[in-house]
């Protein structure tokens, strides 16, 4: 568990360092995700410690969004002013992406 957490942090640290050193536009943790995925695939399996740490973090992923989400109090006037584009992007944009992905996936995956 601790080893797993350390591995996650090491990947994030490596990702942040790479993003800064190479001036990449990608967030450091995403590079870290790529590094971890490459390592796991090369190793051929997910070590138990990393699996436990990852499952523990991802089980309460929702909790981690809350501090940033509460930041909505800073943007209440912006949300009120942009209620239409924001509301339409959320409702229309999400359903458009959802429907398109489903139709393309079903067509391309075909019968098994």
């Amino acid at each position, binding site marked *: 568990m601790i080893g797993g957490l350390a591995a996650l942090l090491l990947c994030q640290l490596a990702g942040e360092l790479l993003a800064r050193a190479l001036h990449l*536009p990608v967030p450091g*943790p995403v590079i870290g995700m790529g590094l971890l995925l490459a390592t796991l695939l090369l190793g051929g399996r997910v070590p138990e410690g990393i699996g436990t740490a990852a499952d523990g973090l991802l089980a309460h992923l929702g909790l981690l969004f*809350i*501090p940033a989400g509460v930041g909505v109090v800073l943007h209440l006037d912006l949300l009120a002013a942009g209620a239409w584009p924001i509301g339409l992007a959320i409702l229309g944009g999400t359903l458009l992406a959802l429907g398109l992905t489903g139709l393309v996936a079903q067509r391309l995956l075909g019968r098994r």
Partner: protein
Amino acid sequence: MNPLGELWVYLSREPLAALTATLCAWWVALRVQRWCGSHPLANPVLLAVALLAGALLLAGIAYRDYFAGAQFVHFLLGPATVALAVPLARQWAAVRARPLAILAAVGTGSLAAILSGLALGWGFGGGAGLMASLAPRATTAPVAMGVSEALGGLPSLTAVIVICCGVVGAALGPLLLTLLGVRDMRARGLALGTASHGIGTARALSVDAEAGAFSALAMGLNALGTALLLPLLWRWLAG
């Protein structure tokens, strides 16, 4: 200074109060979700944010003071993003079986989500800040916030929008997919994960294990693709 005032100064200086409030709000929100029979509209993230935002506004506490404590929870988004590699690695066999079909489907949905966000933000004259906050909204929150920040958007606005997109997709997505005749569980999962990230994946998992697996996969691929391609697309559109 009176004792109550001293107590207030102590509470606002230490991270303890903000952390406790955040965890309590999450706990209450999870309980409410269970009371509502896990109805997709009773989303715990939305509930907890509403509780805390309401409390801050009522008590007149500055968001900066709250965040000074809650940032320790916020920090964990980084390692959680890295941890998304684990479900992706576990489902790698399924990806390798049909890589092109999966990539094409997720890529289509991802592009549709980005472009519809940009078009709506631009069409309503929202300016670059709003567009940058809307564009990455279909990806999982840690990635969306990172990308939004990198593009000059408002990460906290993006977080709220991302959460709302998850709730909309999880609540209405299954109905829409049935109306469109998408019955393949793999396709339904890919659609939910692409458009509604973790909240959609939770919903897919509660319906069907295979749909859940493909949803987690789509969420990871969309996060990686958006993080890699949106900054480049943005630079190209701006330049």
